[in-house]
């Protein structure tokens, strides 16, 4: 009876082919001594001829890495085994032919007549695949059966080939000895009657060839150890794999064509739309618009709730605890500072939600592919889009993500421009300023002006990154090669468990990690604002009373004047006053100046700082939110501090200014020098200053 071994990679439909060939004529047992299943079936080829088919465990190659795979090699190496095949059938999958052919080329070298079955042919049309069978048969030195185990097409063709198995070549399709001609020559001379490739497998595989004729194999092993070290053998194995894949690539170029424009499956249709050279970008920007719109619209309710809750908490503490400096610290330092951070959790959570959904669905890698065309013109790689988008969360991991950019120049440029993208720490700054100075109106009845402004700022940061990259690409004289390789995963429904975990972790990190710094800085700020040097601070009450002795003002207004005078002459007031001449042309007063300085520790500190300073600077006991306090803030001449001009100036300053101290530290680490972070710091600060200056002077 003809003995047939059915071999192939896992998931090629090998068992389906086995079932079609054998029907119910099957026996299932175990290989002796182990728990791996042994399946044997019988196939009627003609009225008088049957074949015994053994379904071997799925294996990726003859370089065995598991018990299952060892069984395949053991059988194919041992001619004395009762199941040793007269003919081998290697089952492959039409969509993964390249990977499946590795095993095929190895089986061919064992000098066993081998048939190649290309399964899942029903998917060819949908995937735009076409195969030239005669060309592949010639290149691979075999006979090919094109089969669909789903529709049963081609199964009879396998039976026809099996009947004629003696005409199937048992010659190899490539010569492995080329990987080290001298070594294999010596091996041939030492063992002239043995198959070279079998000897090679014995030498390199950690398999128990218990049933194989031991003597020549032991001699081969000891021969090899005398001539090659273990690491040299490993290198030769790697070279063998490379040579095989080169042969496979060359072969498939001749007889296997994939035409994406003809593909009809859902993934291909979606890819054609989402990576279209015009609509791809339109869709991407449409999605971005939707995201930023949702961030503003959906977050307003929880944000208002959090804002008023913290204001109420402060009021409760003031009324409950005994009056004194520590109660003041609790209300105006800690609660005010923390409230300025917690309020932005809804917006940050929504932002991370959308980014996670895009990643989980597989769309993000299409964005990378789309953007490569644009990025390349600006000296960036398509892979730069990942740090640039990650930078919307935080610049630190974004800068670290540049490690997978192969070209040093592209990587350096990406590191230098990533801080331009709006990180989540800037979001509180943008959100509060937009809410203060941009009217809450609908444009064209659909778009919210505040949402559009936020989107504009994100796009502005991105545009600044791209333009800077273009300039740096021209200016930096660094030679490097560049290439772009990406594998696009299948589309899938986002696993909401993964999305939820991601949103929770990122929001928690923002709250907990940033929260500790905010808390500490709020305490220090409150102290610096509540204490001061010299007589002017210590005698503030008497000095102010003397100034207003001839004026008729209420006791509340007097208290406010005293609080304001004390703030101006506190430690922090002195710092703010010192830098005020520099920032006055930008439309900022000394209080905003203090917030600019402290926000270099962490950008979100800006809002907490202002919350602390305005709370400390007001003697009023009515419940007010941070936004109300900022809106009510006026100069000594009565003019509002936060106008459209100063608001836009601040927004633009933060859009272009270097991000926090931690960003500076990570750039130093990734570029291994202080040169680049210093260039970044001074360059970005200069751009921010100039832009803020021009915008304030234009809008005031």
């Amino acid at each position, binding site marked *: 009876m003809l003995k047939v071994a059915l071999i192939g990679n896992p998931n090629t439909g090998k068992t389906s082919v086995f079932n079609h060939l054998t029907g119910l004529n099957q026996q299932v047992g175990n290989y002796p001594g182990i728990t791996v299943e042994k399946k044997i079936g019988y196939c009627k080829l003609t009225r008088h001829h049957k074949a015994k088919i053994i379904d071997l465990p799925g294996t990726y190659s003859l370089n065995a890495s598991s018990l299952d795979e060892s069984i395949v090699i053991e059988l194919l190496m041992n001619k004395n085994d009762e199941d040793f095949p007269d003919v081998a059938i290697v089952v492959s999958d039409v969509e993964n032919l390249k990977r499946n052919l590795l095993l095929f080329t190895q089986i061919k070298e064992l000098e066993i007549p081998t048939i190649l079955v290309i399964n899942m042919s029903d998917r060819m049309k949908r995937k735009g695949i076409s195969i030239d069978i005669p060309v592949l048969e010639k290149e691979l030195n075999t006979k090919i059966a094109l089969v669909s185990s789903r529709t049963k097409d081609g199964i009879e063709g396998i039976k026809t080939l099996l009947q004629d198995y003696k005409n199937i070549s048992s010659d190899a399709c490539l010569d492995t000895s080329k990987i080290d001609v001298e070594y294999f020559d010596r091996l041939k001379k030492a063992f002239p009657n043995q198959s070279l490739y079998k000897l090679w497998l014995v030498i390199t595989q950690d398999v128990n060839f218990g049933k194989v004729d031991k003597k020549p194999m032991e001699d081969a092993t000891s021969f090899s150890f005398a001539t090659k070290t273990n690491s040299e053998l490993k290198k030769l194995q790697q070279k063998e794999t490379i040579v095989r894949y080169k042969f496979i690539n060359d072969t498939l170029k001749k007889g296997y064509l994939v035409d994406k424009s003809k593909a009809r499956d859902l993934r291909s249709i979606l890819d054609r739309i989402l990576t279209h050279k015009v609509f791809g970008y339109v869709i991407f920007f449409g999605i971005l618009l939707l995201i930023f719109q949702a961030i503003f619209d959906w977050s307003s309710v929880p944000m208002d709730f959090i804002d008023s809750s913290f204001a109420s908490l402060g009021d409760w503490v003031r009324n409950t605890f005994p009056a*004194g400096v*520590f109660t003041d610290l609790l209300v105006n330092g800690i609660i005010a500072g923390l409230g300025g951070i917690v309020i932005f959790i809804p917006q940050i959570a929504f932002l991370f939600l959308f980014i996670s959904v895009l990643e989980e669905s597989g769309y993000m890698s299409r964005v990378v592919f789309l953007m490569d065309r644009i990025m390349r013109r600006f000296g960036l790689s398509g892979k730069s889009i990942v740090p640039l988008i990650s930078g919307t969360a*935080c610049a630190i*991991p974004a800068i670290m993500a540049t490690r997978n950019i192969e070209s040093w120049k592209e990587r350096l440029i990406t590191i230098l421009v990533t801080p331009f993208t709006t990180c989540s720490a800037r979001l509180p700054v943008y959100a509060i300023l937009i809410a203060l100075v941009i009217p809450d109106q609908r444009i064209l009845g659909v778009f919210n002006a505040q949402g559009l402004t936020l989107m504009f700022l994100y796009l502005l940061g991105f545009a600044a990154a791209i333009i800077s990259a273009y300039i740096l690409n021209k200016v930096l004289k660094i030679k490097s090669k560049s290439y772009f390789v990406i594998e696009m995963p299948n589309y899938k429904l986002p696993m909401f468990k993964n999305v939820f975990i991601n949103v929770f972790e990122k929001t928690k990190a923002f709250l907990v*990690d940033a929260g500790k710094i905010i808390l*500490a*800085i709020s305490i220090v700020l409150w102290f610096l604002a509540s204490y001061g040097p010299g007589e002017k601070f210590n005698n503030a009450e008497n000095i102010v009373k003397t100034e207003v002795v001839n004026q008729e003002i209420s006791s509340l207004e007097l208290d406010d004047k005293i609080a304001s005078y004390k703030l101006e002459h506190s430690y922090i007031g002195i710092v703010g006053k010192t830098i005020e001449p520099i920032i006055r042309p930008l439309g900022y007063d000394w209080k905003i100046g203090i917030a600019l300085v402290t926000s270099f*520790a962490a950008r979100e500190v800006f809002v907490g700082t202002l919350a602390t300073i305005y709370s400390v600077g007001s003697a009023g006991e009515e419940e007010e939110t941070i936004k109300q306090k900022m809106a009510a803030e006026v100069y000594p001449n009565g003019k509002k501090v936060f106008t459209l001009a100063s608001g836009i100036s601040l927004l633009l300053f933060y859009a272009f200014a270097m991000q926090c101290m*931690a960003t500076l530290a*990570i750039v130093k680490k990734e570029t291994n020098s202080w040169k680049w972070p210093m260039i970044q710091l001074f360059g970005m600060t200069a751009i921010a200053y100039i832009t803020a200056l021009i915008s304030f002077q234009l809008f005031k």
Partner: protein
Amino acid sequence: MINTQEILVYIAVLLAVFFLVKKYFYKPKKTTKSCGNDSCGCH
């Protein structure tokens, strides 16, 4: 005479300053190159 609330304030301020100095000026030696638990100083 310093009262209880003032003592509490000074303790809170000293703890805050100590935390910030440790965070920004004192970096323990890392045994791995990954961010581990401190987000690479992001916050």
